[in-house]
């Protein structure tokens, strides 16, 4: 029998056919298939019968327009794929609809291709979708583009008309920064310049369509870029713990030290596992391979982490710029949150700013408050947590994302970090071998200078219980009495230090951890820090206490939910009752009362003044050197 090594398997190139509606995309596909003998037996007869049944002239479009609605209306609704082969290799032709309303299907088709053939009607010339499709090809990262000026038979194969259109379209592409690889004159209906050079256009000395396609290359060289391997899943089917994912760029070898971002853990690659077990395990894998690797140590890794080498790691940031095409039924608006899908990462992002909406016709841009379906825009997106990503221009596969609105993918975008910092260094604590140094000035010295000790008064209680009011009032009174005192207020801190935290339990814990550390620093500096945070979890408050164990006073500001809800100073209870705020303490999230508070202040039973008096007495008793002295004397 014949040899069937892998070398018998032919190379495949995916070509998308795009262009304005009725410029002849489907006819060109039909012609390509027919003239390369790629049509199945009886297909032409079948199409002829369909055409006759509908009282139409012979329509090659019926080859790909398989849906009844497409045939009846003579339009392409959804993208389709069909195979053909040239002498050089196999092709998948991806037919993309030219109607504006089916742009999402055009993008679906185009994004899968290695190269594009953009069709322009010689009679109609450059039209709206000719430009938009050219723009989107560029945005999708398709760099190999041949422009076919079709229906040359209808302009008597006029060289002048060909040059006129090619000049106009070339100027548009140049402005985008795109160099079309070829611009060629063709007649799909007559089969001129499709498979072989046309005798009808002796003035043209470039390649035919097939010649142009054959000159494109099929595989991007992403294996030479830095390693990016987004973790897709972690399996533990047997004794092995397997980290699964596809290498988006670069290469990974057994023994490599790898970094997981944004968790910033490191480990070494122990093995690259394969099935069946009889196969030899590879020592290295390159871009395009879906791998399963094991590590030399058991660190916690999860889907969404990106594996890289330590040098050339991805950018870490919670804010980035994007150029986005929007396909959603609802417009994209400033302030709204969407689910971001970036490789295997999924997280909420908020539209911080719509910088401009771009007119793909003349490439002008204008400010806007929302982005309508099928528009292209430039945005700033902010995430609640740190992301590992790349700029699209450097590493396309890890520099693009989609946004999901409810259940649907509603847009796609490419990332630019222009004007924004890589925050990796700001958040990474990699220091080892660090030694804690004693402060030169003792607590006693500071206390003598201030006339009181430093410490933390930690208010806890429901929203609306009176924490902020009491702490501000207490601060004023203590300040007047000569105390060095400062309020750390929940909302205020969330505008600054903790602006990057949300209200999930994890984020609330982190919020409290940071406030605990900051309050302890104030206290060690000799001041009295008053903190006004709901701080609903006991274990969080215990951690805060651990940061300043000597003088940490937990004050329970007590008021029942009904009382707090009737006050509702920020309107939060109303929102929570309407379901607009999830995980709202007291309504849909727990509040764990203090087990052993230093003081309980009942704001339901007492007036603010009474409560403040109670607090003043408490602070004097615990912090004032004079009081302590008096007591001692």
């Amino acid at each position, binding site marked *: 029998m014949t040899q069937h090594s892998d070398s018998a398997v032919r190379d495949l190139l995916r070509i998308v056919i795009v262009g304005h509606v009725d410029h002849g995309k489907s006819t060109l596909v039909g012609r390509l298939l027919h003239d390369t*003998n790629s049509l199945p037996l009886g297909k032409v007869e079948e199409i002829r019968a369909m055409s006759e049944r509908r009282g139409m002239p012979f329509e090659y479009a019926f080859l790909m327009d398989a849906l009844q609605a497409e045939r009846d209306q003579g339009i392409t609704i959804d993208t389709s794929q069909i195979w053909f082969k040239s002498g050089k290799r196999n092709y998948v032709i991806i037919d993309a609809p030219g109607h504006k309303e089916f742009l999402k299907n055009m993008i679906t088709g185009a994004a899968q291709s290695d190269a594009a053939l953009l069709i322009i009607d010689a009679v109609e010339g450059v039209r709206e979708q000719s430009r938009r499709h050219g723009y989107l090809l560029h945005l999708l990262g398709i760099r190999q583009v041949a422009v076919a000026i079709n229906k040359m038979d209808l302009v008597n194969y006029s060289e002048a008309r060909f040059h006129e259109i090619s000049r106009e379209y070339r100027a548009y592409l140049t402005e985008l920064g795109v160099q079309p690889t070829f611009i060629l004159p063709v007649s799909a209906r007559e089969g001129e310049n499709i498979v072989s050079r046309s005798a009808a256009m002796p003035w043209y000395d470039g390649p035919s369509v097939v010649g142009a396609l054959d000159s494109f290359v099929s595989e991007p060289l992403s294996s030479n870029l830095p390693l990016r391997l987004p973790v897709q899943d972690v399996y533990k089917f047997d004794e092995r713990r397997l980290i699964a994912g596809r290498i988006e760029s670069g290469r990974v070898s057994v023994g490599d030290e790898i970094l997981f971002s944004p968790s910033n853990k490191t480990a070494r690659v122990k093995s690259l596992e394969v099935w069946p077990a009889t196969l030899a395990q590879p020592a290295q894998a390159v871009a395009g391979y879906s791998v399963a690797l094991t590590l030399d140590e058991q660190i916690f890794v999860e889907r969404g982490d990106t594996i890289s080498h330590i040098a050339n790691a991805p950018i870490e940031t919670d804010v980035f710029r994007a150029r986005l095409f929007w396909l959603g039924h609802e417009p994209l608006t400033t302030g709204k949150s969407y689910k971001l899908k970036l490789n295997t990462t999924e997280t909420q992002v908020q539209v911080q700013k719509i910088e401009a909406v771009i007119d793909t016709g003349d490439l002008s841009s204008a400010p806007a408050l929302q982005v309508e379906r099928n528009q292209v825009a430039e945005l700033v997106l902010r995430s609640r947590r740190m992301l590992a990503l790349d700029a699209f221009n450097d590493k396309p596969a890890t520099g693009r994302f989609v946004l999901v609105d409810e259940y649907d993918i509603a847009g796609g975008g490419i990332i630019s970090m222009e004007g924004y910092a890589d925050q990796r260094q700001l958040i990474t604590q990699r220091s080892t071998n660090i030694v804690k140094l004693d402060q030169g000035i003792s607590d006693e010295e500071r206390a003598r200078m201030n006339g009181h000790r430093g410490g933390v008064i930690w208010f806890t209680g429901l929203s609306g219980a009176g924490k902020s009011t009491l702490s501000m009032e207490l601060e004023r009174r203590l300040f007047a009495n000569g105390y060095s005192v400062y309020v750390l207020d929940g909302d205020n801190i969330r505008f600054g230090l903790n602006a990057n935290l949300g209200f999930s339990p994890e984020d609330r814990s982190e919020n409290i951890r940071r406030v605990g550390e900051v309050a302890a620093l104030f206290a060690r500096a000799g001041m009295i820090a008053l903190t006004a945070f709901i701080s609903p979890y006991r274990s969080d408050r215990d951690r805060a206490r651990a940061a300043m164990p000597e003088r940490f006073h937990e004050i329970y500001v007590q008021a029942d939910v009904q009382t707090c809800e009737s006050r509702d100073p920020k309107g939060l209870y109303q929102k929570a009752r309407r379901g607009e705020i999830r995980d709202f303490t007291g309504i849909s999230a727990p509040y764990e009362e203090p087990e052993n508070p230093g003081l309980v202040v009942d704001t339901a039973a007492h007036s603010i003044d009474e409560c403040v008096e109670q607090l003043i007495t408490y602070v004097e008793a615990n912090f004032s050197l004079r009081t302590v002295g008096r007591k001692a004397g």
Partner: protein
Amino acid sequence: MNHLDQLENKSVYILREAFNRLDKIGMLWSLGKDSNVMIWLAKKAFLGQVPFPVVHVDTGKKFREMYEFRDRYVKEWGLTLIRETCPPIEEIDPSLPVAARSAARKTAGLKKVLDKEKFNGLIAGIRRDEQATRAKERVFSPRGQEGQWDFRDQPPEFWDQYKTDYPPGTHLRIHPLLHWTELDIWQYSLRENIPTISLYYAKDGKRYRSLGDEDITFPVASNASTIEDIIIELQTTNVSERSGRAMDHEAEDAFERLRADGYL
């Protein structure tokens, strides 16, 4: 990376994505050449495991060889099999053409298994090159409450970001072989030494290119008696793969109607 490696690695990515993103999935196993490749790819993806059940929607009218194959490889491949019997023909829409009505039993069987198992993802081995409406499919293709396919408004799908969010009560069909061709399947089966049913190989000048119910599936003229022969035949033939599947040819829109209603 050659062409078969590219196909394999893309399919592995899709299978892993389905397994991670969806709570409850099953893989449809028609016992044909495509679904055997699909099981093989699952074992590649999950390093020897198939971590979800395989579902055989049984019309009761398959070839004897198919049942024998099933019973053997359930054991050899360590599969968890869910077998669902299709309802009798009398329960199926009588307005359908004869063969399509027979094929629609499978759609009904599929609905039964979806109801019973509460799958939110069903992995199916359809390919774009088989049939023109399948060429329009998505890799992650949403299905309505009744399993129906809304081909007029399919979700966008690009950059390997698939639709993995769906309203309650609906499910997704996942198509890890969508980008493969019939020739690819055979070349890969040869390379990987994947078992196939004997009906695909020519006996007395005839072989089956596509397997379905015994009464509505017909062999094509061929002398290809080995995988190597089949590969050579496919490189030169211009007879379509499903020419022996009667339900495709009864009316211009027969297959579209079947698919819109939830057929594969």
